[in-house]
């Protein structure tokens, strides 16, 4: 009963594991480049939740710092990714990754 009424480390870890699963699912099944990048953001945020939860229960500041840097890096990555996707759209008139296949065996 106590597991259900008080929020502990396991709850955070479960949510983060679900987020990782959703992120991987999005990356593997979606064809739209933007949606794939959203899946990547889910994976990164799953890691962030882990870092913050562990930081809270381990009692150190490293996890918080790590999460901050992951957020910054994710923003930078989104900027570069969107620039590349816009360029792809200009050339291929589509952001569907399955239709972008000029490089083949």
């Amino acid at each position: 009963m106590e597991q259900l009424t008080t929020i502990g480390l396991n709850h955070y870890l479960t949510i983060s594991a679900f987020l990782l699963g959703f992120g991987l699912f999005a990356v593997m099944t979606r064809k739209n480049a933007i949606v794939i990048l959203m899946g990547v953001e889910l994976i990164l945020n799953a890691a962030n939740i882990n870092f913050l939860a562990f930081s809270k229960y381990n009692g150190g500041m490293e996890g918080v710092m790590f999460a901050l840097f992951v957020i910054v890096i994710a923003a930078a990555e989104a900027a570069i990714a969107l620039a590349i996707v816009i360029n792809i759209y200009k050339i291929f008139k589509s952001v569907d990754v399955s239709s972008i296949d000029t490089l083949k065996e």
Partner: protein
Amino acid sequence: MFELPSGAEIQGIIASLKASVGLFIPEIYLSLLFMLLIVIDLVAKGKKNNLLSVATLIGLAGSLFFIYQQHSLPAGEFFFGMYVLDEFALFFKYFFVLSGMLAVIVTMADEQFDREVKSMGEYYALIVAMVIGMIMMASSADLLMIFLSMELVSFTAYILTGYFKRNARSSEAALKYLVYGAVSSGLMVYGFSLIYGLTAQTNLLKISAELATHGYDPLVMIFSTLLILAGFGYKIGAVPFHFWSPDVYEGAPTPITAYLSVASKAAGVALLMRFFYIAVPHGGHPYEDIMGIDWLSLLILVSVASMIYGNVVALWQKNVKRLLAYSSIAHAGYLLLGIIVMDKLGTQATLFYLLSYFLMNFGAFYVVILIANKTGSENLDDYRGLGKRMPLAGAALTVFLISLVGLPPTLGFIGKLLIFSALLAKGSIYIWLALIGIMTSVISLYYYMLIPLNMYLRESMKHDEKEMSTGMLAQIIMALLMIMTIYFGLFFTPLSDFAQYSSAMFGITLH
């Protein structure tokens, strides 16, 4: 929960930062060079001359001096355990600066840049940024630093891969690189978070101490190791994290392909060695791993898969850049063999192999660029009869390919010899690994030799016997690389001594 630091503590932190900056001079110098190149580009806007590339070359050469000065400094961590200076890091500093310089030289020879882009703009600055990132990768002592430096390398690599903005193939390569890179680095960070959860530490040495004293849950450990391996394996392009590499190598500008295949792979190898040798416990721990699977058996699996897959799939390739991409997957497998040995000899062999791969792969790509400048093609069939039309290029490419196969009297032979002898020195447990390595090298002989076969023994379909000149400077550089590949294949002691000297991490050598 968190108290404000006292005045004395703040003074202590400032003093420690000041002391650390003195050990960080090459990186600061390169960062200044990066900014200087952007300013030079702004001042000389729109002009297409050699100003930027020559400035980059001189600037990178200057950094060698600062790196050389670091030999006298004591090995150890600084910046609060974020960063480390040791012989291992120094080796990679030289390696990355030199490969940055070669990437610039190769770029200067490539005429595709004249056709595809109006100005070189931030290209050279990004190459320098990638050098900084890779140096930081090889010197990081903390999970946070590993993540940040790896992303710095990845981001610059994405942009450089897509540098031909109007070229469909280059843009597509950038997109694929980005998607695979983002996913694998995301998985790696998740793995880091699990390691942090196990140990409450982010410093590699402290993680290792924590795992040794308090033990760990083997299931979580193997899961996080697998996730982290996804991040590192992506950088070195090993199976099953290789999906990006053939497409990216084919689509990217050829100098960037050469640069990625050598330098970025070496940075991944450096990280892999530092992380798995130092942080992850091995051997003799009280906790049994799940079904006897630990990180070492994962690496063995990845290595065998890379050697077999890379060499076998390369057999069917018709595009030379793509062929070299698959060969680079195979070479990632050979490099992993040296890492698996996990002793002083193995480290030395891996570092030596990286040096040999550096010379022969850059050389091969350089010739491929020179040929593509003249024929406008990278297809194997268009190499027919080139041996007569471009004698020096043909000879040089043949030498580089022989070295890539690992036949004497070239540098590649010594590299493979060191790796296999390090494996065999471990006793009978790794004999089968060495056998797979040798057998796959034999397979590689076939597809590498297809190129000289086309160049020398098959007639061109166009019956164009006119000799093509590649320019004086390009011929000198090509000849120099070729002579070095053979010279160091015969007199390899300085290189192997240097590799042996560099095998100390954190001031510790493995035995």
